[in-house]
């Protein structure tokens, strides 16, 4: 187990470093010298040189990379060329919002998918189970932003029950914080929940066909008892994979929901950075997103091992 953890950790760290190189290289090929962009066309060569020195863009790329990547470890993302504000605090603010948004959305998805998927599997032969399956198929087919727009329309504009958008920090007003996030959570949760329902259903169906479930019943457990005690944890293994995949794609995928609900998350920051050509900011956000996905992969791998003893020795 310890060996496995060490190995996974190593893979995670190496991948992150490689991702860092990729992100840096990608940004380096972007046309446009940040100093030129900042000073405009009428700038003097001296001013340009001075600004390049100030930005540090006059140094060799490798040195720039090491400086930047080394800074990341301490949370120093550099200072924006455009806004001349430090990037680190912005990213950490936004990351917090996105994590709450995506985490809550996934929680909502789980709360929907686990009961619904299990129910649909257990009752896969009767009409209600089929209806749930059909619902989840339809849910998958609806774009998240459309779900968001409709939720706003119904709950905010028509019912006037919840805010249509905006974000209130938890520390400022916990009730408003919750209210401001409820619809975004729901729109992520409904769509992701539909996707997840399918996976939970098929995982539970698979597990229900497993011999050890029959063994459990032969021991004297009832159908549901066997499923509860022996099935769910086994079914969780494939579901955790999907959950990891979903979480990873959602970190950036949530940007459309952020847009609909005017939530200042990481995706929004990225789009702002792109619109303002704030390359260092874009670079930082992309790096954080990519590292987060890799981290999620790592956590999923570890969760696997925690769930499934067969993986601990192997690999």
């Amino acid at each position, binding site marked *: 187990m310890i060996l496995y953890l060490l190995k996974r950790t190593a893979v995670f760290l190496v991948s992150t470093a490689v991702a860092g190189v990729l992100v840096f290289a990608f940004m380096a090929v972007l046309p446009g010298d940040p100093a030129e962009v900042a000073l405009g066309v009428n700038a003097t060569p001296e001013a340009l040189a001075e600004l390049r020195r100030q930005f540090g863009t006059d140094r060799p790329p490798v040195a720039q990379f090491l400086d930047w990547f080394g800074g990341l470890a301490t949370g120093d993302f550099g200072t924006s060329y455009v806004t001349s504000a430090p990037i680190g605090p912005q990213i950490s603010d936004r990351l917090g919002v996105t994590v709450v948004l995506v985490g809550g959305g996934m929680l909502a998805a789980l709360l929907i998918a686990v009961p619904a998927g299990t129910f649909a599997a257990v009752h896969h032969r009767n009409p209600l189970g089929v209806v749930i399956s059909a*619902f989840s198929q339809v849910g998958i087919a609806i774009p998240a932003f459309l779900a968001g727009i409709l939720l706003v329309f119904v709950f905010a504009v028509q019912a*006037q029950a919840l805010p249509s958008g905006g974000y209130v920090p938890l520390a400022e007003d916990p009730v408003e914080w919750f209210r401001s996030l409820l619809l975004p959570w729901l729109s992520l949760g409904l769509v992701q929940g539909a996707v997840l329902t399918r996976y939970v259903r098929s995982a539970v169906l698979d597990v229900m066909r497993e011999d050890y479930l029959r063994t459990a019943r032969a021991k004297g457990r009832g159908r549901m008892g066997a499923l509860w005690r022996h099935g769910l944890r086994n079914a969780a293994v494939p579901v955790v994979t999907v959950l990891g995949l979903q979480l990873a794609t959602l970190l950036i995928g949530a940007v459309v929901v952020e*847009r609909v609900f005017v939530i200042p998350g990481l995706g929004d920051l990225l789009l702002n950075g792109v619109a303002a050509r704030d390359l260092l900011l874009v670079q930082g956000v992309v790096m954080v997103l990519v590292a987060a996905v890799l981290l999620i992969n790592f956590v999923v791998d570890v969760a696997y091992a925690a769930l499934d003893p067969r993986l601990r020795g192997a690999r």
Partner: protein
Amino acid sequence: MRRIGIWIAAGGLLLSIAACGGGGGSGAADGERQATQEQSLSVGFVAEPANLDFTSTEGVAIPQALLVNVYEGLVKLDQDGAIVPLLAEKWEVSDDRKTYTFTLRQGVKFSNGADFTADDVVFSFERLKTDWKLKITSQLDMVEKVEKKDDTTAVVTLSKPSNSFLYTLATRLGAMFSRTGVDDLANTPVGTGPYQLGEWRRGDHIRLDANPGYWGEKPAISSVTLKYFKDATALNNALLTGGIDVISAVNAPESLDQFADPNRFEVIEGTTNGEVVLSMNNGRPPFDDKKVRQAVRHAIDHQALLDTAWAGRGQLIGAMVPPTDPWYEDRTGDYPYDVEKAKELLGGKTYDVKMRIPNLPYAVASAQVVKSQLAQVGINADIEPLEFPARWLDAVFTNADYDLSIINHVEPRDISIFANKDYYFRYDNPEFGKLLAAADEGTEQEQIENYKAAAKLMSEDAAADFLFLFPNLIVAKKGVTGLPKNAISESFDFTGLAKQ
């Protein structure tokens, strides 16, 4: 049944949370604030500033938020467009109209505590040449020197008489900076205005709080929150659900019906200085050919464009002059919609051109109409939306790498941009420059005459096409007063606002 159960439970949760918020949230808070005389107001905007330094960053978002509210100039425009004193109590103009002696208001302090003196006036004018990074600083090129006579008197000497000088001082170019407050303009603006920066949560809002040391009358609203919405629909929804009090500019004009209830909302529709220009690159084929440009002007059915792209809100114009300017003349008849005429001018040729537009609602909507109408005469325009501001500014504005573009030129009295042949229009007619120079140096009557002639010339030259005048569409909650009908300055002035 389990799924249905969950639905009911979720619905119940929503409702209970909603009820609790509805009772304890905004309603109660409103009452409280009124009781303590601490009025606050939140105004929704579409474009958020990338930073707060309008001396280095283009775009209207920064002066909109900060000018008059945080930064003040020597003069300002009143609601009718007249120039009135602000930091200058009064001024005297020499007989040759080249020397302006400003008497400064006393007891004015910057929000960093420093006193405002004639030294700051000299400092601010010098910064235009040394620190500003914008092309528009050329509008004050006629300033020859600025001197301090004493602490409360500053003398500005012009190289030639200029009608636009005082007017320009009312724009961001005339903003007064503190000698000790320019270290971090991007994040910490320091001005003499009635408001100072309270909080800026990037991507969400800027809060301006009343400046306790303000020299003049305290504004009725002590705390204004500028909330930013990239999405026009989200902005509408925010007002509909009480998230904000005012929409500064409706960017989804078709949706105005939502605010039809006069008991809840007030819709203000007026004009702005914003000419939505279909720019044509005069500097390269095919639009270096006047006939092709003229064909474009004939090919566009402006009324149809306004009706479809912007819900018919706004006004048709034929030149770079809004009706609120004194030298306005109706030039919409210069190029009537005439497909046959356009085809004739093109001589049967067809063209493929690049239409590189900012990814803003009005531009994307207008571009689709323009493309469709140009296709009727054989000009195939390929629309490429660029992220605004950065990519558009870089590709079109700075490098003029475009054939057609569409942008709302919001700066007041900006017909002069056509006189600069390096401007992205690449319009180069010396006659036009002469007319403008004559207008600026001449008497008031000459000014009007020459501006009229210049507008006529550029219209006939088809230097660009003018799609429509951007409407000032403001929607406010019932009871918000002091909103301007016409937006004629760069600033969204909060000082006159109140809440009943």
